């Protein structure tokens, strides 16, 4: 099980978790991006830029 990069809490991934999905640490609430499901690797969620596009 992956650990929170901030508070080391263990983060259980849901069965239908997808690569690219954003999840929150249940303890400290930090947002992480699931970079890959197998093996489960987390990264800090990218800082949200004001979006636009066609």
């Amino acid at each position, binding site marked *: 099980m992956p650990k929170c990069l901030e508070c080391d809490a263990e983060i259980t991934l849901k069965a239908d978790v997808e690569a690219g999905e954003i999840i929150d640490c249940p303890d400290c609430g930090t947002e992480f991006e699931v970079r890959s499901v197998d093996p489960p690797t987390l990264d800090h969620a990218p800082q949200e830029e*004001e979006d636009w*596009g066609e």
Partner: protein
Amino acid sequence: MAMLVVKVGGGRGIDYDAVCADLAELHRLARPWLLVHGGSHETNVLSEALGHPPRFVTSASGYESRYTDRATLEIFEMAYCGKVNKGIVERLQGLGVPAVGLAGLDGRLLSGRRKSTLTIVEGGKKKVLRDDHTGKITSVNTDLIRVLYEAGYVLVVCPPAISDDHVAVNVDGDRAAARIAEAVTADDLVILSNVPGLLRDPDDEATLIPQIASEALNEHFGYAKGRMKKKLMAAQEALDGGVGRVVLGDARIAQPIRAALGGRGTVIGRPTDHRA
């Protein structure tokens, strides 16, 4: 004569013949203009036909946009820069207008900052999309515009823009028109689409809001949904950039541009001077 920037959408039901006839008449009256056009409908049709159906995503802050991976970007270019742009140039040439079609890529007419990631909400999940070729315009190459206008040509412009790391990026056409209007110090920005203007009730064309003062624009965002919200953002950016008046007009009527210049639609900013 100050430049007029016209944005015509790419949605269903846009009558390019009427728009081009109107532009040709303005050209004949020596009223300089620059046209920015869309092509979303053509892009959707092409995407479906090529088995790469369009995927529209909603950002965490509620904005809808076309997810533009590399394959979509090339379909986007085929529709915008190929079919629609050259179709408009062909019509204008036939009406005696010395039109030149350019994408924002060409000569870096439109440079933009590419968003490295896009955070969306889909199927109840928050997700990060990485290879989205979408960006925001950061600069307009007014030198290229000046060179061509001084030589007597007239520009027909469309996305994509080009990012600082030299990648073609999809940019919002309305906001691109606003940035161009600002860059060429246009007096007027006319945004034509397949609706009469900003409606209090989107389903009732009789609820058209005819006039909005610049400082009151913010209060009207509540009436706008989806694409109209982006048109109001574009109008705001144009007004902030010194453009005197923005008119949201109907592309489906006869002489759509002169009607908008005459005040038909939603006029934002400087009221229409009916003596002109």
